[in-house]
């Protein structure tokens, strides 16, 4: 601010009328050019950049396989058809890739991961939020520092461990491996929610004769339910979108998740891009819907640590 005042423009105009007219012209120019053309122009470009790939995905998905290979490509298909979406239920049309099976696998793994991660994270994040015990800082650090570690490098030891424990190609193994992502996420989000619940509530409950654990279960947990739901949805989206772990720990086609299974819809000799785009579209719907439902929370949670809001 100091800088601003020092460089303050000397305003002692000799010709007042001319100056007012000049300012007026400048304001008008700014209003039309910057507020109108520039802002909406950039916004249009940004929206086009963000949305165009989706539109192209959708446009391709409602083409026939033949029409997707027309040169030059058609923006809007001449004969819109849902033919490509046949791969979603007809495994024969999809090189024996069973979309329902992949969908079910994704659902099982994502939901289990979410439930277990939230269940484990609730007491832990409550303790991190409320208690002061020796080693709390280090433990919290070790949970949250995970994302600085390269997951790829961890796959080798985990791969050997899972081979020894016969956890490869199993839901259990996949869910356990997904904890590397979901658990830190859930602990962090939930701690934020617990931090937002006033401490006085437990104190009042304790005075009324609750044990410490009783106060946590009866008073705090009900209040934290919206936070738990939001955390669960976020954890679900992350598990649903995960590719690397699923790729590494499932070689059995029966256990493929959607993200891995998706890659198999495009076999080398039968490049059916229309079908692949149909699959991509179908996979994206759950996450986009989940996101739009809780967009407001999402943005708040994401930025809570960086900005006091």
């Amino acid at each position, binding site marked *: 601010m100091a800088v*601003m005042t020092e460089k303050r*423009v000397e305003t002692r105009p000799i010709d007042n009328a001319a100056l007012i007219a000049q300012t007026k012209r400048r304001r008008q120019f700014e209003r039309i050019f910057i507020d109108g053309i520039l*802002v909406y122009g950039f*916004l249009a470009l940004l*929206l086009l*950049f*963000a*949305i165009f*790939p989706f539109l*192209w995905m959708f446009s391709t998905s409602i083409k026939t396989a033949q029409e997707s*290979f*027309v*040169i*030059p490509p058609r923006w809007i298909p001449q004969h819109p058809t849902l033919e490509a979406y046949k791969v979603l239920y007809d495994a024969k049309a999809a090189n024996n890739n069973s979309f329902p099976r992949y969908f079910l696998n994704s659902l099982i793994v994502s939901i289990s991961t979410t439930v277990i991660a939230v269940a*484990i994270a609730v*007491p*832990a994040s*409550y*303790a991190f939020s409320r208690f002061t*015990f*020796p080693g709390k800082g280090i433990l919290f*650090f*070790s*949970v949250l*520092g*995970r*994302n*600085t570690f390269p*997951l*790829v*490098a*961890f*796959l*080798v*030891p985990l791969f050997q*461990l899972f081979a020894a424990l016969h956890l490869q190609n199993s839901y259990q193994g996949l869910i*356990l491996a997904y904890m*590397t992502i979901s*658990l830190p996420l859930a*602990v*962090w989000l939930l701690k*934020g929610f617990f931090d937002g619940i006033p401490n006085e509530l437990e104190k009042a409950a304790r005075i009324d004769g609750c044990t*410490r654990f009783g106060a946590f279960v009866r008073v705090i947990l009900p209040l934290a339910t919206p936070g738990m739901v939001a955390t669960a949805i976020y954890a679900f989206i992350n598990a649903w979108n995960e*590719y*690397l772990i699923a790729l590494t720990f499932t070689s059995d086609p029966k256990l493929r998740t959607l*993200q*891995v299974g*998706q890659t198999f819809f495009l076999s080398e000799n039968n490049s059916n*891009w229309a079908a*692949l*785009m149909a699959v991509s579209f179908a996979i994206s719907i759950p*996450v*986009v819907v989940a996101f739009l439902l809780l*967009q407001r929370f999402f943005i708040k949670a*994401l*930025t809570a*640590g*960086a*900005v*006091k809001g």
Partner: protein
Amino acid sequence: MATATRTLGRPQIAPRVTVQEPGVFKRMWKHRADYLYVFPAIFAMGIVILYPLVEMFRLSFYYTSPYGGAQKFVGFDNYAEAVSDEHFGLVVKNTLVWTAASTIFALLIGLVAAIIVSRPLFARGLVRGILIIPWIISATTAAFIWKWMYNADFGIISWILIRFHLIEKPLKFIDGTDFVLPSIIVANVWKEFPFAMIMLIAGLQTIPEQLYSAAKVDGAGRWRRFTEITLPQLSPILLVTSLLLVFANMNAFTFVWVLTGGGPVYRSAIFVTQVYSQAFVGSPHFELASAMGVILFLILMVFAVFYVWLFNRQSRTSHVVEDEEEGGLALLNVTNAE
């Protein structure tokens, strides 16, 4: 301004206790019930994080035959072999270009987007929602969409450029060696600029409106208000966001792998895809993958230490950032990093 606040802020900070008081075991015993709350989480993290971390370091010092059998301690031989790989230099260069360019452009576009959608706009909520979608969908799906758009024969991007007479015939965006790295960077910027946008929208909201009105009274134009208020006020969160993007980009395996597989001829191979290839493509070289993993881990640790240091410093100097050091670490979880 930052220096002034820092000197003012310093005396208010309570000295950090580094030396444990006597009787730490006594205190641990007193708080024994507390550990029950965190035990399941810590136990799970021990299996999936601590064990792999320790084992990765151990493996990197041993020779492991791809066909099983006894392991042999070889010191730093694995590191020497990994570094002397004929493609190592190219991979390091790719990783640097990929990380730097993706981060800078995502930040720039994110900043423009954040400034625009922070203004009163028609259907602002919907506009924000649409702009965030690229970041929400899976890396696999995003990679496939771009792979299709970059297709050498039928790709729409080539045909748009032909329509505008910028090129004569379709370009090999990701199938040739010339454009592959810039092409996947463009796609990556598309995927992650919304993240920068979200962070910067939040940052913009913390700038007090009075600063702008005061500057207006003083006769500062838009550009000066931007360079002398918006940018300095935003600088802490710009730094934090750029570091988070660096982490995400260094670890962006899925996107690169699905889009190009690191090819053609290593032109788009980055560190993480190389680690994966060493371990799981062809004959498994777990020892080389581990050595490269350790190198990558140490590089990321340097960034992490810088990040924590920066965050702590900002917590003391700025009102923008929450005054808890864990706040910074916690943010690491939002980048969808792998």
